[in-house]
């Protein structure tokens, strides 16, 4: 049985007098224990909203409706009351965010921001908590951890800050770690270090990782299974290798075509997908990607496409998928990680 089973998750923002916005529209995927799962898509496709909905961290506002299920270890997270949710957050499911500077409280020392998790979930206090916090910082590769505990976020470099956030997330050895674009705000060299660190932590502790990213390089280097999101829906799910070798959904093909490649011929153009996610649908039903799709046919604009389960365990939501002999070779891992 999967560790996390998200079923038909939907998030709707309804404003008075305005048309409701379906930020997430029937997303289903699962994460097995110890598995690394990618949630991939452009900005605006609903990947962050999905993760926040699972965590119960969507900003409370009138008109917000969350539907479906997110079953973690037998309990539906969406049905829990606030207190039980707070018990699970940080202990069983932890999260790392995109911008490490703004995600850390600027006015309290790093040490307290680590120990407060230990105090809350592991009942550690004083000396013991400080010692454990130092050990955690050491484990995520922060040199001179004792001194760092007393410092404030602005005194740390970007990479150190993200390491500190990771330390806080793994403080209680969660069973699931959700990383929402953890490397987007960092330098390329630091990105690689942080990904390496995440990989190592996941491998050593058996923590499952839900990796939310728009960066296919990250996916290629880390994920076992990949879910491609578009317009608030999962449009393709596959293991990593088949996905890169033979993408079926035209959007996945487009994503792969948008990545610059070192081995491309000089002067060869990138193939960006025209338009953007935010473009409104010209017709109410049908496939959300159709307006931008090169393989659009008449059926695309009538009914929303059903999920097709292919024989090799992959699934996609397309009535006119890419034919099977794949056109796009998988990227070499050492280049893209």
């Amino acid at each position, binding site marked *: 049985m999967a560790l996390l089973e998200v079923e038909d998750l939907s998030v709707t923002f309804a404003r008075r007098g305005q048309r409701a916005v379906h930020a997430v529209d029937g997303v289903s995927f699962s994460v097995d224990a110890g598995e690394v799962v990618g949630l991939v898509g452009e900005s605006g496709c609903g990947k962050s909203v999905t993760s926040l909905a699972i*965590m119960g*961290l969507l*900003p409370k506002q*009138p008109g917000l409706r969350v539907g479906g299920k997110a079953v973690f270890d037998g309990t539906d997270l969406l049905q829990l009351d*606030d207190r039980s*949710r*707070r*018990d*699970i*957050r*940080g*202990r069983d499911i*932890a*999260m790392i*965010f995109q*911008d490490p500077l*703004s*995600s*850390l*409280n*600027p*006015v*309290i*020392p790093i040490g*307290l921001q680590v120990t*407060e*998790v230990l105090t*809350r*979930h592991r009942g550690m206090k004083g000396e013991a908590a400080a010692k454990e916090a130092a050990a955690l910082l050491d484990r995520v590769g922060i040199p001179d951890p004792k001194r760092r505990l007393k410092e*404030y976020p*602005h005194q740390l470099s970007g990479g150190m800050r993200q390491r500190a*956030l990771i330390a*806080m997330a793994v403080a209680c050895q969660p069973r699931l770690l959700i990383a929402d674009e953890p490397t987007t705000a960092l330098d390329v060299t630091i990105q690689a270090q942080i990904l390496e660190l995440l990989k190592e932590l996941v491998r050593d502790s058996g923590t499952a990782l839900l990796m939310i990213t728009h960066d296919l390089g990250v996916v290629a280097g880390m994920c076992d299974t990949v879910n491609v999101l578009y317009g608030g829906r999962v449009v393709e799910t596959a293991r990593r290798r088949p996905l890169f070798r033979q993408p079926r959904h035209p959007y996945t093909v487009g994503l792969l075509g948008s990545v610059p490649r070192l081995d491309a011929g000089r002067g060869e153009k990138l193939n960006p997908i025209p338009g953007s996610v935010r473009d409104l649908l010209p017709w109410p039903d049908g496939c959300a990607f159709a307006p931008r799709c090169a393989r659009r046919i008449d059926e695309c604009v009538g009914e929303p496409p059903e999920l097709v389960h292919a024989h090799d365990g992959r699934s996609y939501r397309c009535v006119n998928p890419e034919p099977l002999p794949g056109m796009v070779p998988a990227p070499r891992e050492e280049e893209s990680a």
Partner: protein
Amino acid sequence: MFRFIVRRLLQLIPTLFGLSLLLFIWLRRLPGGPETAILGERGTPEMRAAIRRNMGLDEPILVQYGRFVRRMIKLDLGTSTSTKRAVTTEFIERFPGTVELTITAMIIAIGIGIPLGYLAARRRGRFLDHASVGGSLIGICIPVFFLGYVLKAIFSENLHWFPSSGRQDPTLEATRVTNFFVLDGLMTREWDAAADALWHLVLPAIALASIPLAIIVRITRASVLEVLNEDFVRTAEAKGLTEQTVRRRHVLRNAMLPVATSIGLLAGGLLSGAVLTETVFAFSGIGAFVAEAIGQRDYPVLMGFILIIAVVYVLVNLLVDLSYSFIDPRVRVR
């Protein structure tokens, strides 16, 4: 930290020096000169000349200025023309009353303003939010003296809950030590005197607190709303911390910075607001005294008041700057 305080106190010197120059010029430039200010329009030329000689106004201007500064350094602010007593003595008697009133008003404004602003932000768009935002608008609009009269009419003349005027019941014959009546009562263990002084403070302090309270509510509300949207609050929530910890450690502390700034600015304004409040409640602080001095053209008193206000302003803002460094390590002073 220590060096910062010393440096800021040293900055007082040029401020006061500039102020002394302005005051000096102001006094020389009074219509008809200082002698008219003292004598009024009735003085004979002989009397004028005598006063000019007496005050050293016939000496070179630099010598006059030198003497002026020397007297100021010795805290000799001259003699009040209306009460014929030394200005310094008058101030020592009256200033503590104003300080007591201002501090009480500030405690009310902060003690109610910050929690109310916080709750309004948390209950955004609901009744408490609308009530406090609307109420604070009324608080800003109502003139202090009007509110003072209304409070007096309701709570002392009709309900007889609070005294309507003065700083203390004179029949108590309380011992004076510092002229801070509440403090005096506590120091001499005359509990009834302290309680009575405190009782006299309530209505004027509420009247005086109305505007700062309204401003603090609004600034706190806006600031909390902004902090609630910050990423680090989401991080704190993601850690599963209790609501109380998130609120106290992560939201409130970050929201306090703009509030601290406004408190510093408000504290200065309170001293001038005290003038009206003290007049309404016949509260013998420096405000009522200065209001009278303006009418009497009592220049030595006015000059002394301006100097004191300047010093208080600098000191209060020093305190505010120091409080920053406790709230936010990024502006930690060196």
